[in-house]
């Protein structure tokens, strides 16, 4: 059964130095509040897994949490570069970052294999791309039935997966909808899991076939209203595209990035404090 915990306690208990950590959410429901808490608690040497690192991993990489990144697309969507990710890869700042780089279909197959407790995922992928030349986590095998050459990628089994969802009930059953990405697979693949939700309700009113994670496959549920900002939670608030555009300027230089992080994330107690700090300095 999932325990309902404050986010600070959940991160203290569930995320350890050196862990392989997946914060999933494809553009939608990105667990920013949880990422900030990992930064505040100064977790180090993490292997960060995410199909699309997005601004949250840019912040975590720039803050020095990550030793390795497992990913398939590392940009600021619709804006351009993730400057902190680039600085780590191009210049090793604030520390070198190892890459385990894939295409989206391969990452999806890796999570599905992890959730299925299989050693690897198989797909008709990585055709004509140089990715396998630079990544020993992409191999090719012959289909035992047809002889077709197929790509094989190892399962992802995170030590801990953290996702954001719309709501949970008081027993810790979780409901999400809209763009659901690989959130379900990432939770099912992980040894431990934390789900941050917008609200905790008496009854989920979930129709059959809804994307529900039953309480007993979730480790902890934390309620942080607005905790996916500046991404979005469908039915609650929209993606703040202006923030994503503004991040380009904030993150471009190390000094402006550090000043912003010190002021708004490291210098605040929690996500509510972060949001108030942003408002004060708007």
């Amino acid at each position, binding site marked *: 059964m999932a325990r309902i915990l404050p986010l600070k306690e959940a991160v203290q208990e569930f995320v350890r130095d050196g862990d392989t950590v997946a914060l999933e959410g*494809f*553009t*939608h429901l990105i667990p920013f509040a949880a990422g900030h808490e990992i930064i505040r608690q100064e977790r180090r040497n993490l292997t960060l897994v995410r*199909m*699309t690192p997005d601004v949250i991993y840019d912040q975590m990489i720039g803050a020095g949490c990550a030793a390795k990144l497992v*990913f*398939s*697309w*590392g*940009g600021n*969507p*619709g*804006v351009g*570069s*993730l400057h902190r*990710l*680039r600085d780590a*890869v*191009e210049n090793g700042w604030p520390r070198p970052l190892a890459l385990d*780089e*894939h*295409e*989206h*279909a391969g*990452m*999806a*197959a890796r*999570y*599905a294999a992890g959730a299925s407790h299989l050693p690897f995922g198989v*797909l*008709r*992928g*990585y*055709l*004509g*791309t*140089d*990715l396998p030349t*630079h990544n020993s986590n992409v191999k090719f095998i012959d289909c035992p039935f047809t002889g*077709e*050459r197929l790509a094989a990628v190892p399962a992802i089994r995170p030590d801990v997966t953290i996702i954001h969802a719309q709501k949970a009930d008081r027993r810790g059953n979780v409901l999400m909808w*809209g*763009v*659901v*990405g*690989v959130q*379900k*697979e990432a939770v099912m693949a992980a040894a431990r899991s934390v789900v941050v939700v917008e609200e905790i309700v008496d009854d989920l009113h979930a129709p059959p076939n809804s994307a529900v994670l039953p309480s007993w496959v979730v480790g902890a549920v934390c309620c942080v209203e607005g905790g996916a900002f500046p991404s*979005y939670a*469908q039915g609650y608030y*929209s*993606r*703040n*595209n*202006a*923030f*994503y*555009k*503004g991040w380009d300027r904030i993150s471009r230089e190390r000094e402006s990035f550090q000043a912003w992080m010190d002021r708004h994330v490291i210098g605040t107690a929690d996500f509510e404090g972060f949001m108030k700090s942003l408002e004060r300095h*708007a």
Partner: protein
Amino acid sequence: MPEQTAYTADEMMTVAAARMVRNGVACFVGIGLPSAAANLARLTHALDTVLIYESGTIGTKPAVLPLSIGDGELSETADTVVSMVEIFSYWLQGGRIGLGFLGAAQIDRFANINSTVIGDYSSPAVRLPGAGGAPGIAASCGEVLITLRQNKRAFVEKLDFVTSGGYLEGGDSRERMRFPGKGPTAVITDLGILTPDPATKELVLTSVHPGVSVESVISATGWPLKVAPSVETTHAPTEDELAVLRDLQERTARAHSGQA
């Protein structure tokens, strides 16, 4: 130059790219220039085009262009929204998608594209975002359109990294690798349109946009560009195409400028 409504080179590129989207096709759309062109197509001649974004949004009908590949606008207006595993397995790998529409940072003469690094992979001069869904889209969609601005930094003799395969080394090299889809059928730029030679698969300049000389396209290309025996001139954007495109971009700019 005949008298006509003034338009920019980017508008010409988007309009020319949009015209290539057949009505009714299921189109896997990349963000940025491809997204603008695919939506312009859906709002003009290709009303029944099924737009699919890699966030798992299928049959989406956004009123404004999404900034990200998974904006709420896409899922709210979609016929259905599926998971990442499903979109790449059942829909893309399953062979359900007729057209892939991609952008790129760099392209070579065989329409292979790079969106990964400039320079050496392990110590790159510029780290680009990487593959995303593009290698799968390039491999598995029935055919592929590519749109990007044409200059010598983008149209290069040799890619530093092949992110997504076009015609590989040319000739039958794509067929020998047994890609499910037939590959890029056109590259639409701000200067003109390039299409692959049926035998060698090398890109050939087949159309220049109004006011653009063949020589200027050659000098914006980092390899000796092949030119078709008779190069057409692209039809200038119609007033209707321009009005719909500008309206879309105006709505989009308004929607994305909300306060942070």
